[in-house]
C-alpha cells in the first residue's frame, strides 16, 4: 500500500518548520527573545500589510521555537520542562550606582595613621567551660558572669563605694559617648550628601533651635530681649497701627509711655540738691 500520497497531503496542511533568513537571528533564550536584523520588504509591506506581517511574525516565532526545542529537557511531575541558558542581554540599571559613603571620623583618622582593621573571629573559645562563646552580643556575656565575683577596691578609692555600680556607670558613659559620636557621623554624612559644610549645618541647627526656643514663651517671644549679633528672625512682619486710628486712644497710650519714661509722679517737687544746700548754709 502506498501511503506516500496520504502523507504528502497531511504534510501539505502544515507549513515547513525551516525558515530561510539572509542574516541569522540573535537569540536570548533566557528572555525567550529573538532579534531579527533583516530589512523588511517595503513593497509587500505597502501592498499586503496584514498578510505580510502575520507571515513575518510566524517565521520569527518558528525560529525561536526551533531553538527552544534544542534546549536540554527535564521531565517532572508538572510535565516536560526546558532548562533556559544564562541571560545574554544586559539590561541597563534603573537607578544610578550608589555613591561611596563618606568616611567617618575614625576612618579618616585610621587612614591618616595607617591603622588597618584586623578581623576578629565572632566566636571565642572559653577555656573554663571548653565551649565556644560569641565575643559579643547574645550569649556573649556568659563567659564573664563568674569572672568578676570579686572586685578589688583601688588604693585611694572610697572603701564604701560600690565598685560594681561604678563599673556599670562607666560602661554606660562609654555607650552614651559612642552613641553621640555615631549620631555626629550620621549628621556630618547627611550634611555632606546635601553638599553643605557640616560645621555650617551644625551652626544652622543651633540657630534654628534658638529661633524655636524664642518663640516658645507665653507671649511668643514678644518681650524677649534681643541678643547682640543675633540673626534677624525670618517670617516676622512689622506691624504698625493704622494712620487714621482713634486719636484719643493714641493720646492715652502716649501718656502711658510718658509716665514710664519720666516717672509716674513726674519730677520730684522738692529739689533735693537745693534743699541740702540751703540747710548747710544755716
Amino acid at each position: 500500500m502506498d501511503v506516500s500520497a496520504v502523507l504528502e497531503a497531511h504534510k501539505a496542511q502544515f507549513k515547513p518548520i525551516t525558515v530561510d533568513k539572509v542574516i541569522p537571528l540573535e537569540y536570548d533564550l533566557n528572555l525567550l527573545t529573538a532579534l531579527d536584523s533583516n530589512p523588511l520588504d517595503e513593497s509587500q509591506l505597502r501592498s499586503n500589510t496584514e498578510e505580510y506581517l502575520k507571515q513575518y511574525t510566524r517565521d520569527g516565532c518558528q525560529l525561536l521555537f526551533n531553538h527552544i526545542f534544542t534546549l536540554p529537557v527535564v521531565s517532572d511531575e508538572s510535565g516536560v520542562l526546558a532548562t533556559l541558558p544564562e541571560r545574554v542581554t544586559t539590561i541597563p540599571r534603573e537607578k544610578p550606582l550608589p555613591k561611596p559613603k563618606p568616611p567617618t571620623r575614625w576612618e579618616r583618622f585610621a587612614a591618616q595613621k595607617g591603622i588597618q582593621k584586623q578581623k576578629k573571629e565572632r566566636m571565642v573559645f572559653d577555656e573554663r567551660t571548653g565551649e565556644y562563646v560569641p565575643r559579643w552580643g547574645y550569649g556573649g556575656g556568659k563567659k564573664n558572669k563568674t569572672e568578676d565575683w570579686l572586685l578589688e577596691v583601688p588604693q585611694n578609692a572610697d572603701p564604701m563605694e560600690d565598685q560594681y555600680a561604678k563599673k556599670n556607670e562607666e560602661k554606660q558613659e562609654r555607650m552614651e559617648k559612642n552613641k553621640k559620636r555615631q549620631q555626629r557621623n550620621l549628621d556630618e554624612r547627611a550634611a555632606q550628601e546635601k553638599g553643605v559644610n557640616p560645621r555650617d549645618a551644625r551652626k544652622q541647627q543651633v540657630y534654628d533651635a534658638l529661633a524655636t526656643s524664642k518663640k516658645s514663651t507665653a507671649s511668643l517671644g514678644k518681650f524677649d530681649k534681643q541678643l547682640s549679633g543675633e540673626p534677624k528672625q525670618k517670617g516676622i512682619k512689622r506691624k504698625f497701627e493704622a494712620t487714621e486710628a482713634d486719636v484719643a486712644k493714641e493720646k492715652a497710650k502716649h501718656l502711658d509711655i510718658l509716665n514710664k519714661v519720666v516717672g509716674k509722679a513726674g519730677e520730684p517737687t522738692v529739689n533735693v540738691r537745693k534743699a541740702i544746700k540751703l540747710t548747710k548754709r544755716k
Partner: protein
Amino acid sequence: MRPLTEEETKTFFEKLAKYIGSNIKHLIDRPDETYCFRLHKDRVYYVSESLMRKATSIGRDNLKSLGVCFGKFTKTGKFRLHITCLDYLSQYAKYKMWIKPNGEMPYLYGNHVVKAHLGRITEDTPEHQGVVIYSMSDVPLGFGVTARSTADTRKLEPTAIIAFHQADIGEYLRDEDTLF
C-alpha cells in the same frame, strides 16, 4: 506716614524729656486741638489731627513734609532732634541758658558755648543736661547740653566750654536741603 511704635515713642520721649521733662504731656494733651506724632520717612512730625487726616490723601512719595518736624531716627534707631522743634522746646524748657550779644554769632555758626559768653543760666542746672539757649533779649537761638553743672562753672576759666552745641537757628541756612 504712620504712628510711632511703642519702642520708637519711648526713644523719642526719652530724648525730648532731656529738654522739657514731663512737659511733654502739654504737647500730647492740648486744650485747643488734638495733636499727634507721625513718622514719615524716618522723620517725626508733630501734626494736628485735622491736618494729619488731610495728609492721608497724599501719597507717600509725594508727601514732602507736614506739621512741625521734631527730628529724625538714625539708622541705628537713635533719635536726633532738629532745630525745627525749637519753638516747642523753648516754650516748655526746664533749664535755660542766656548768652551775651558777643557770643551770639559764634554760637550761630555752630560753635560750643564758652564761659565768657555766658550771660545767665538757670540755677542748679546739672551736668549733661539738655538746655535751651537764648539771646539776652529772650530770643531762642538753639539748644545744647551742659558740660558742667552751674556750681562747677564758677571755677572755670573764661575759655572753657560750658555747653555743647546741638542745634542752632543758623542751621536754617546751613542745612536748608536736609533739615525738613
